[in-house]
């Protein structure tokens, strides 16, 4: 097998290099960094990036106040910490980031890399296989290839640096470092089902389909081939556009438990909607979490009247998770916070699948997503999705990004970035039990609040420095600030960036961040109140973190 040596000078020239705690704790780290890296840094007049979160973590392990670490680990951390001090002393590293109660520095890297990846080329040195995969995934998730490229390496005894690549399932893993030995090709890029580069179709210029039929229970309908006959069953629900019925396939004589149909009200199905449905039926996105149109339904006169889709179960978010706490408790009495995070992750799975195929949901809101008591989620109203040139004709201002607040829905094509705002708002409201991110004291109408972008929740010390006009008296009274205090750092940071700084992350990044949140809850959170849907107290901050915070503050002043 041919080994590729790493061109260190070039790496230093082109990339900003970050180092993780796990690598700094390696015995060879100091020698390697001081001898192999630092000379080139001086030549290129560049510096390594040492995150405060990393040095904090090293410090914490080294001091080990809770007496949990084995002595050898404390020694490794001590040496790593000394390496950091040397690097900083010799002007080889920038010490940046935020020191605070961060437990998981790898989350932090993910957020940092997500933010910075479009600005410069990034390199991470870590021994953590999982982190390296998460970081490398960012290369895959970057929209339209704007990212400048991310590389990840580990420290290796013999070779100095060894590059990580995204693993493919079958490849073997080397036993020592659990690294992949050979350069592996990235998984073949699967082409999205739909184009993201289509001109807007003017849906105002519709032609009526002049459909005469009026469908009700017990009527018979046909699929496109005319071979399958369906019997319309009981009415399940109705909305402004149409009615949902249960349906049974006459050929198999069974009532489908998984499928239902939507029948449009008079004049609600126009030529554009029909064309879009045909496009969707032809290109199936199959996921239980998305009620994608599976087949169009026609009358015996061949008039299209509706479509078959997956059945959604449970309650709308609006009538459960976003409702008054009494209603939430009534409907989902045994839930805790892990369920809420799971709901977020399930919705994100569906959203990410749609986004990967260049489908935008458009009208994200609490009425369009259903959830059952097993945390399974279902996105309904798929016929209003934005697909290629067909815009989503409707929207919910509460979930609409400020830059498109005043534009009439259906007259423009939304961007993924627009939708990331809606996704952020949705996730916030799920974790915050229905409270809108911009509900604040002295706020007003939701839409005004969005345009003013006054996010009322505090975020560490970054806040006071970076946010002009932030008034700590604005968080709404009630349980909301307590809930906020129990949300982990990286999630809070991403919400803060989205709502206070207008910097949004994509759904894949959210999935990763919230998976970590879920893992924390599974593993056992420090504060039992962190499991409560509505906690009674603010999160208890461990004493050592408080002490450190005080010390830092004194140093600053």
């Amino acid at each position, binding site marked *: 097998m041919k080994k590729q040596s790493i061109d260190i000078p070039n790496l230093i020239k082109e990339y900003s290099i970050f180092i993780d705690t796990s690598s700094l704790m390696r015995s060879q780290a100091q020698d390697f960094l001081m001898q192999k890296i630092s000379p080139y840094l001086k030549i290129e007049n560049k510096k390594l990036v040492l995150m405060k979160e990393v040095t904090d973590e090293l410090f914490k392990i080294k001091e080990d106040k809770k007496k949990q670490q084995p002595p050898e680990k404390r020694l490794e951390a001590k040496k790593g910490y000394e390496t950091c001090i040397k690097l900083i002393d010799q002007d080889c590293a920038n010490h940046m980031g935020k020191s605070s109660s961060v437990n998981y520095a790898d989350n932090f890297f993910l957020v940092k890399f997500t933010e910075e990846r479009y600005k410069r080329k990034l390199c991470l040195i870590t021994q953590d296989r999982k982190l390296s995969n998460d970081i490398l995934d960012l290369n895959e998730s970057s929209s339209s290839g704007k990212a400048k490229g991310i590389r990840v390496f580990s420290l290796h005894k013999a070779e100095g640096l060894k590059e990580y690549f995204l693993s493919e399932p079958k490849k073997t893993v080397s036993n020592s470092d659990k690294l992949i030995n050979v350069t592996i090709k990235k998984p073949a890029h699967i082409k999205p089902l739909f184009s993201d580069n289509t001109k807007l179709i003017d849906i105002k210029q519709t032609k009526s389909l002049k459909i005469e039929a009026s469908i009700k229970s017990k009527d018979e309908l046909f699929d496109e081939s005319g071979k399958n006959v369906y019997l319309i069953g009981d009415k399940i629900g109705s909305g*402004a556009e149409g009615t949902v019925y249960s349906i049974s396939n006459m050929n198999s004589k069974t009532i489908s438990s998984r499928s239902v149909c939507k029948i449009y009200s008079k004049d609600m199905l126009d030529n554009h909607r029909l064309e879009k449905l045909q496009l969707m039926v032809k290109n199936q996105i199959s996921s239980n979490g998305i009620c994608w149109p599976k087949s169009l339904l026609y009358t015996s006169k061949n008039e299209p009247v509706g479509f078959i889709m997956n059945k959604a179960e449970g309650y709308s978010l609006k009538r459960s998770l*976003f409702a008054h706490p009494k*209603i939430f408790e009534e409907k989902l009495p045994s839930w805790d916070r892990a369920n809420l995070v799971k709901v977020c992750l399930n919705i994100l799975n569906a959203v990410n699948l749609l986004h990967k195929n260049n489908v935008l949901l458009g009208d994200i809101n609490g009425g369009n997503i259903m959830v059952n008591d097993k945390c399974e989620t279902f996105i309904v109203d798929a016929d209003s999705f934005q697909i290629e040139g067909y815009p989503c004709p409707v929207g919910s201002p*509460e979930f609409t990004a400020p830059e498109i607040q005043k534009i009439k829905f259906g007259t423009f094509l939304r961007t993924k970035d627009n939708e990331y705002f809606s996704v952020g708002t949705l996730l916030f409201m799920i974790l915050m039990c229905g409270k809108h991110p911009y509900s*604040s004291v002295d*706020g007003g109408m*939701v839409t005004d609040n969005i345009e003013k972008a006054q996010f009322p929740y505090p975020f560490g010390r970054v806040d006071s420095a970076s946010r002009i006009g932030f008034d700590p008296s604005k968080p*709404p009274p009630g349980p909301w600030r307590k809930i906020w205090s129990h949300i982990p750092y990286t999630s809070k940071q991403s919400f803060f960036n989205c709502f206070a700084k207008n910097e949004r992350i994509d759904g894949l990044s959210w999935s990763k961040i919230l998976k970590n949140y879920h893992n924390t809850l599974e593993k056992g959170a420090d504060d039992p109140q962190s499991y409560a849907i509505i906690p009674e107290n603010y999160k208890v901050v461990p004493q050592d973190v408080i002490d450190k915070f005080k010390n830092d503050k004194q140093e600053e002043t």
Partner: protein
Amino acid sequence: MSLILEDRELAINPNPRVPICIALDTSASMTGNKIDELNKGVKLFLDAILEDEVTRFSADIAIITFGRHVEKVLDFGDVENIKLHQLTAGGGTPMGGAVLEALRMLEDRKKQYKKNGVTYWQPWLIVMTDGMATDGSMQLVDKVKEAAIKTSKLVKDKKLNLFSIIIEPGTSEELETFGGKLAPLDGVKFEEFFQWLSQSVSVVSESTPGTGFKLPDPQSWTSIEW
């Protein structure tokens, strides 16, 4: 004490609220069939609001009557707890004073929302009357005019959804000056009207604040189209 409890309830409920003030004519001319049907309609309305778990926690309703005097018969935030007394007819038609009181209440309620970080829809005001106001242009202080100046500006600024309903044999003359939507009630179709109103409130509760919403067709209780 009650104020603190009230604030707590405001703060703990994440739903955006729609404040709705209904000003009802209970003057002497409403005696008989009309006041009976009105009572039935109001009861039906409150029942429908309470029955739905979304509107119960988002529709914030107050009722004012104007007859012998202007009286607050249901205050905001009380809809879950109060037993509404039967409305009785008698006295004059101090509609101007009632509308002014309604505007003051809506304004106060909005302040309370703001204090508690509650988001809301634009307030609704419903005025129902069958006659000329007794505190209007015939009087030294024309409260109808004063009210109309305020309401028409609020409606124009899109800060108020106003519905004026003419009960027979009333005329549109004064109500027109308020701005907003105006419609005559067919006969004594109070129940139909309040049914429509609860459906409308439901439509708004299901929509999002700040958006347009399409109200149900009012043809069940009026002959005109909006």
